[in-house]
């Protein structure tokens, strides 16, 4: 299983590096969002009740980091769908002795790709003057949460791609993730949201990750049990989703 996973991950990353058009959009989107939010909305920290010591850049960085993680997984899902559409995945199914290794391989490549995005994003944020209140352990916690979210995004997209086996399923992979992201406290803390969006954000699983991530970067960890509990539950659920998707692809031949 490990050899299948490593072989596939190597192939995915090679394809990625040889095609800037596949590599650049997932890199540029979070950077553009970060610039837009941190640059254009920083005045929001003056809204009465906005209580975040590390500043608006750090506040928005955590959201963009999680967004990049989720979309890193989703963009990898496009690659899976493309592999099925072009028939490459069929050859993979035939040749892999342990097919679960395929999901692991796609996850490894998605993780590596996102790690590069996270490094660039973090560098840009630090150059842009982001204040970090948390210590090394806190930051490790924040990146761990984002890494888990990347895996969740990949497992979700993988399940969709293996069920539909067509790149046309792309919007189906993206839209729910996009909605989940933007139905969380993106621009201001949860306590400042009002109306229906407050009710939705309160039960949105991403809110726990976001609040915990912001707590980490601010040096005041919060909601850790809820965030890691939700993350673990999401991984288990979407691993099942991806594995049953693979089973469908196997049956379809």
């Amino acid at each position, binding site marked *: 299983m490990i050899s299948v996973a490593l072989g596939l991950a190597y192939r995915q990353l090679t394809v990625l590096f040889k095609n800037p058009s596949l590599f650049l959009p997932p890199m540029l989107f979070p950077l553009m969002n970060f610039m837009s939010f941190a640059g*254009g909305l920083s005045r929001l920290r*003056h809204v009465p009740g906005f209580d975040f010591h590390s500043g608006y850049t750090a506040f928005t960085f955590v959201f963009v980091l999680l967004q990049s993680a989720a979309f890193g997984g989703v963009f990898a899902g496009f690659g899976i769908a493309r592999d099925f559409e072009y028939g490459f995945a069929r050859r993979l199914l035939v040749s892999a002795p342990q097919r679960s290794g395929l999901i692991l391989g796609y996850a490894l490549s998605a993780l590596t790709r996102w790690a590069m995005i996270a490094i660039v994003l973090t560098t840009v944020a630090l150059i842009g003057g982001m204040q970090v209140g948390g210590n090394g352990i806190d930051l490790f916690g924040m990146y761990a949460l984002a890494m888990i979210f990347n895996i969740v995004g990949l497992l979700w997209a993988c399940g969709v791609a293996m069920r539909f086996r067509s790149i046309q399923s792309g919007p189906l992979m993206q839209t729910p993730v996009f909605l989940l992201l933007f139905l969380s406290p993106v621009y201001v803390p949860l306590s400042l949201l009002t109306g229906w969006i407050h009710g939705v954000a309160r039960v949105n699983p991403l809110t726990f990750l976001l609040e915990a991530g912001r707590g980490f970067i601010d040096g005041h960890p919060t909601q850790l049990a809820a965030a890691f509990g939700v993350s673990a539950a999401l991984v288990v659920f979407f691993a099942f989703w991806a594995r049953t998707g693979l089973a469908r692809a196997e049956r379809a031949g």
Partner: protein
Amino acid sequence: MSVIAHQVALIAQRSLVRTARQPGVWIPPLTFPLILMAVNSNGLKAATHLPGFPTNSFLAFFVPFSFMQGALFASAIAGTDLARDVDTGFLNRLALTPVRGAALLIGQVGGAVGLGTIQAVVYLAVALLAGVHIVAGIGGAVLILLLAILVATGFGTLGLWIALRTGSGEGVQSTFPLLFFLLLISSMNLPRNLIEVNWFRDLATINPVSYMIEAMRSLVISGWDTQALVLGFGFALALIGISLLLSARQLKVRMSRT
């Protein structure tokens, strides 16, 4: 009807029918900006508590965003359609007919303009149903629609130029994030005087998209603001003119290659 008008009508009809026949093309541009408007207008509501914020309804402030995002979709649609025509050789076959270049360009953007018109009406209707009050009244609403259609035409024409330049649908799609970036670095989320980061405020100030947004916004939240309207319409018309010029030049290059 003059020959050129007839040619424009035929190509525009084809463009409109082609857009209408692909729900996957027109449903996202119609729904996605509305979803974002609903989510962001609530998510950013707290901004109305900032001293100097021009209205107490963030939804009213944010309405122009939908028109602009719809226009960007129009750009992608017009560009992708033309790129497909280049790719499939349809443009080459057209080159053998007496069709004029101007007719081809104006007609080709027809699908985007048609969709832009429907989008503008839907967005405005939804905003009114959601309780947005247009301070400039019915005349202002008509002007918002007109500007939204002009902006969609401008970005649609820009999409044509990109398609003619790149000759591929992928090329058009990959420029979409760059165009979206223009929207992101504009005054779409906050008035320029409330943007506190200098470099961002400077970028928003030299970004023509800010003025298109502010012209529509002025009609919704403050009434008739001549300066904002002149700038908004001016930049929209300039976008159409420059894009048409670039497209016409690129069309000559593309045709001469065939």
